[in-house]
């Protein structure tokens, strides 16, 4: 009896010791930075909560979100000098080359290849499309794993279309058809605008216009500016037509979304990642239909928006934990939360299975529009040496003047190309 008691006490003590030892095991805290604060509640935080539940020894701590990808990139650039970069950073699609060329020589970014190798080729093949992985690969290094992917799509107000005698089942496909439809919508409704594409803030949509006409911004080796060609001219002419013929308001994406959600805009061109926000903002006031981005040429392409998950920490323990988190984010379960919270396209092959998103997509075809554009999606172009913002500032001023008719599309385009060349050469 006494022996049993002693044994029980010993067992209890050991258990207590083991129990108290558990929290003493190093808890890894990962600092994470992402852009667009509105997405924190929609998927970043829910994903982190789900992950921390499964990994009690890893803590995910979000730093203040960046307003957009450029701000995030610049913040990391500043932090790199003082060694205060976050452990995990979500880099804008067009900024990864610059991020890698800035951080790799300083040993402040982690190549994900060893982690992928550890998981095994079979696992990689099962989860990631080779083309998707390729987006984050530069010179053989896998610097980033695509987390969010998007293409620009068109949002239609079906009610306004019907009022204008247009069939929401027969959506316009080309720029000409879009302009015709937008004109009709505006004529049929006195206090609405026909169509809006954001050319006021950020160059993603301007690039999309050039790509849709089969053009490119620069040569593949990023030495020669190429959008001064026929495709660029067609895109510039379309900008003028949108303002002249459709009376397009020159506003940014937020303002356009607000106007569309208020039922005062027929067609809104935006990212597929905004479907959830748009659905919530419309709240059933009218019927929303989505369609593909207007095309100008048969060989037209579209720039892929979104971001890569990158691991910046150099601490092996943290790297291991960060990889677990990134793996979870890009897993089918993680992608399901992400897609449903935004409208982004899943970057994991398995996510399209019925038990994850397959059924949902079947029931909500409007969410699937962007997926149909995957075959023509190419990388979102980033100008060399993080000159993208400066290039865009000059471009946007000229585009505005092209739109308002102060300068002809031909001369305006020349001016844009010249300024881009000058800035890239600096």
């Amino acid at each position, binding site marked *: 009896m006494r022996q049993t008691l002693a044994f029980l006490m010993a067992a209890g003590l050991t258990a207590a010791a083991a129990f108290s030892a558990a929290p003493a095991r190093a808890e890894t805290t990962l600092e994470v930075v992402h852009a667009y604060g509105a997405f924190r509640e929609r998927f970043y935080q829910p994903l982190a909560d789900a992950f921390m539940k499964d990994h009690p020894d890893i803590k995910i701590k979000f730093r203040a979100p960046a307003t957009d990808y*450029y701000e995030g990139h*610049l913040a990391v650039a500043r932090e790199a*000098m003082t060694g205060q970069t976050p452990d995990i950073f979500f880099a804008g699609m067009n900024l990864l080359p610059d991020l890698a060329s800035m951080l790799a020589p300083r040993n402040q970014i982690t190549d994900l290849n060893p982690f992928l190798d550890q998981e095994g080729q079979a696992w990689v093949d099962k989860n990631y499309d080779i083309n998707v992985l390729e987006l984050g690969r530069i010179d053989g290094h896998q610097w980033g794993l695509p987390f969010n992917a998007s293409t620009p799509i068109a949002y239609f107000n079906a009610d306004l279309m019907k009022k204008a005698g247009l069939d929401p089942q027969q959506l316009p496909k080309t720029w000409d058809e879009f302009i015709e439809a937008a004109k009709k919508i505006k004529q049929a409704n006195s206090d609405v605008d026909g169509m809006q594409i954001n050319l*006021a803030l950020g160059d993603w949509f301007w690039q999309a216009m050039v790509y849709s006409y089969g053009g490119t911004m620069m040569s593949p080796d990023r030495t020669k500016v190429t959008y001064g060609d026929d495709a660029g001219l067609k895109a510039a002419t379309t900008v003028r037509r949108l303002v002249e013929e459709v009376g397009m308001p*020159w506003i940014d994406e937020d303002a356009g979304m607000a106007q569309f959600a208020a039922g005062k*805009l027929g067609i809104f061109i935006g990212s597929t990642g905004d479907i959830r926000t748009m659905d919530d903002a419309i709240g059933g006031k009218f019927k929303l239909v989505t369609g593909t981005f207007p095309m100008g040429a048969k060989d037209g392409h579209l720039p892929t928006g979104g971001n890569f998950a990158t691991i910046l920490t150099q601490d092996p323990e943290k790297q291991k934990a960060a990889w677990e988190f990134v793996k979870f984010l890009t897993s089918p379960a993680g992608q399901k939360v992400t897609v449903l919270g935004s409208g982004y396209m899943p970057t994991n092959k398995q996510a399209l299975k019925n038990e994850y998103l397959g059924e949902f997509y079947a029931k909500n075809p409007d969410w699937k529009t962007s997926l149909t554009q995957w075959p023509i999606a190419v990388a979102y172009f980033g100008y060399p040496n993080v*000159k993208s*913002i400066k290039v865009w500032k000059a471009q946007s001023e000229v585009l505005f003047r092209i739109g308002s008719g102060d300068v002809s599309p031909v001369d305006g385009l020349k001016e844009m190309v010249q300024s881009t060349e000058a800035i890239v050469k600096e």
Partner: protein
Amino acid sequence: MTSLPTCGTCRPARAVPDKLRGVNAAYLFALPAVALIAIVVLAPIAVVILLSFSNYSLGATDWSLVGIGNYAQLVHDRSFLNALSNTALYVSVVVSMSVLLGLLLAILVHGTGRLRRLYEVIFFLPVASTLVALGLVWKFMLHSRIGPINELIAALGLQRIDFFNNPSIAIFALAAIGVWHLVGFNMILFLAGLTGIPRDLYQAAAIDGADGFWDRLFRVTWPMLGPTTIFVTITSTITAFQVFDTVAVITHGGPAGSTDVILYQLYQASFQYFETGYASALTVVFLIIMMAISAVQIFAARGVHYS
């Protein structure tokens, strides 16, 4: 003979510590304040001035002095001249409107009895608020299609106004927000000035026959508010020159660069393009403008009599 030189060296030797002790104590007491000013104000300014003569870009490992290269570039930079003239336009509108409206409001509020405190709070609210957050509110208030203000304009049967999308209007729309944000502060300053005007001046004026509203305003109130007006004008000018929040939140310098202002350009050059040398030159120019305004205040205040 030997005692004289020793005495000679010994007397000044005693005098020097005396003198030193007196000087030391004074400097010692001032030292913390002087050191603080040197570290947090003067040293950064000196660094900025030095950088403005270099081609340093943030994070670069090698850089060199380029003389007045950055300043020469400034003079020929179209976008800087554009920003300068935009800022000047903004300042002139904001200062004139916010000073006049502030004075008007102060006189009106001063005349009300019981409701004075309420009015003060109402007009002061914009001053106490965060301009970044309210900039977002204004962005949608003045939205060209769905903004309440344009709804009102349309309801009155007038043409809608593209507040932030029309290059010839956008800077005035921003100026209107600036006035709205500043006028309450100016009103409070004028109210303080009004309280300081002795009642008997009005009585004396009334005896001389000047007892109408306008007579009192132009013969007593306005002249007596001279020093306050100078002060309000100067502080308003300095505040207006620092316009940044609304530009960064609402227009981003657009459309077509019509709302590009000095501070926004400075921000872009240093934090977006990492052109630290050029941004430093911009900062120095900005600093000189600020100092010139402050100097005007010092000299102008001498010419205006107090009661």
